[in-house]
């Protein structure tokens, strides 16, 4: 699945964006399948906004985003849901877990959304063990710390088929050790699917062997 941006400009940041030079905003950019993309962005340059545009949950932009030669608005709600179930996964900066559910249920929700389970319970527990969150799986998501929630959100994003993974500061609340573990898990899962990802963060890092770097 190819993602290409054409003169994409967020309306709320329009003046600011047009004053500065950006690698993404108001440019023609194409992300080819399997690319591991790092987008470095200082605060307030619209990094979360970009992720939301790419995941098609915000539409307040000019220019357009083509997914496989077709702009986002051309997809109907059912097609969009299909893409989100099998082609594009996401880790939001604000995580977005359901407080009514336990940590495990939050993961399961995504795991069985397509009708049958994508990963077995053992595989999920294995992933939880890697990120050291096994002990909180049965806890209500409302009671978890931010770092725990972040790791649950990461696992949730990985229990579905995808060819692109969007990540918005996915390690912001993890210590170095857990960041390393999470990055390893994400890299394994992306490799297994031959999937690409787009990661936005404030600083440079070496968590992944990126194939493309952009400055927002």
């Amino acid at each position, binding site marked *: 699945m190819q993602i290409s941006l054409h003169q994409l400009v967020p309306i709320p940041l329009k003046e600011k964006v047009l004053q500065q030079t950006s690698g993404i905003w108001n440019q023609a950019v194409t992300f080819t399948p399997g690319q591991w993309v790092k987008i470095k962005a200082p605060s307030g340059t619209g990094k979360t906004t970009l992720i939301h545009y790419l*995941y098609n*949950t915000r539409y307040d932009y000019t220019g357009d985003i083509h997914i496989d030669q077709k702009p986002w608005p051309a997809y109907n*709600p*059912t097609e969009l*849901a*299909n*893409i*989100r*179930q099998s082609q594009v996964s996401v880790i939001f900066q604000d995580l*977005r877990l*359901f407080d*009514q*559910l336990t940590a495990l*249920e939050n993961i*399961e*929700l*995504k795991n*069985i*959304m397509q*009708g049958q*389970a994508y990963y077995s*319970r053992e595989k999920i527990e294995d992933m939880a063990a890697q990120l050291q969150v096994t002990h909180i799986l049965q806890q209500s998501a409302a009671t978890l710390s931010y770092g725990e929630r972040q790791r649950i959100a990461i696992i949730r994003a990985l229990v*579905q088929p995808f060819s692109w993974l969007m990540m918005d500061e996915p390690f912001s609340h993890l210590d170095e050790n857990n960041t390393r573990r999470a990055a390893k898990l994400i890299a394994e899962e992306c490799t297994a699917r031959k999937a690409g990802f787009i990661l936005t963060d404030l600083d440079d890092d070496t968590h992944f062997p990126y194939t493309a770097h952009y400055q927002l």
Partner: protein
Amino acid sequence: MQTFYSLLKKIIRAGIGRARYWMAYIGLGVAMLLIFIAIQVHSNFNQLLHKPENKNESADFLVINKTITNANSRNVEKNAFTQSELDDLQKQPFVESFGYMTPSQFKVQAYPPVDLQFSTAMFFEAVPDTFIDVKNDEWKWAVGDRALPIVLPNSMLNMYNFGFALSQNLPQISQETVSALPIRIVIYNDFGQEEFVGRIVGFSDRISSILVPQSFMNWANKKYAPGLQPTASRIIIKTKDPGDPKLVSYLEDHGFSTDNDKLKDSRLRMIVQIIVSVIGFFGLVLLLFAVLVFSMFIQLIIAACKKEINLLVTLGTKPSQLKRYLMRQFVPMYVLIGVITLVVISGIQYFVYTLLLKQHLFVSPLPGLYTWLAAAAILLLLYIVNSSTIRKYIYKP
């Protein structure tokens, strides 16, 4: 392992506002029951009136004439039926067959068998034989016959026996006595006269007139009033159902009158119809409100869980998945309500059936076809409202 829908159940709490939820279902149940009752009462009433088992006689006879008013009392022509009126009447669905009552166009004088120095002026009428309820071998007349069979109305003998005879100290007489008495009948006018021996051969409950055979009437009218066409001022119709409101309103609209007693069924039926309509109307109004509450209820749930539903959609839940989940919250419930009300109406109908059976009246022991159709239609309506409300709020981007 948990299913997707059991997780949805934890996220979208469809049970909010339990009290309202149950009120809506109870309202729906009552509405359906009222509608079913209205339909059932209507169908039972029709069965009581029209089912062959419930009929003593397969048809009824009505003598119809124009209402005599002060304005037209001197105008025989106006009080007779015109040809177009007759044609129109004949075309009506409630008229099964139809005959003229032919009046005599000559004068009749009757004398008692022995000379008692009195006589009485009379008249005759004739109707086709098929309309007479007295079947008798003697009921025939051919040209040259001296004997003239006569049918009297039952009421006439009663009037004599219980009114006249008692007040005049005369003996009361039985039907047999009357039938045994030969009556001297003289028919006459300015052209001549002729004498016959009249014999009462029967008493009619159906037609309150003095009847002679049609063959005699034709012959006598021709002979004594050769140029005159007999006017059709009274006619007799055979009808399946004298209580048919269409018949009654037809007669009223055209200013015709008949034996009102036979039509009293119709008034009763009109009252029943009004009651049925009122019940049905309330049922429909209640149904309307129940449907309204339902769609508002669905909106309420969706509005209360807006955030959760948005996040579910963001995570990739298909609108069809959400819709199916929400439908599952409602459909089984109103199907259940429908089944319960159908069971209740079946019970009521069976009770009515056994109750009426004791009176030798027959209605079907199960609810009729229209009740089942109404149930299906109501459930379909609910499904459509349900589905379109959910669609409206879920598929909206």
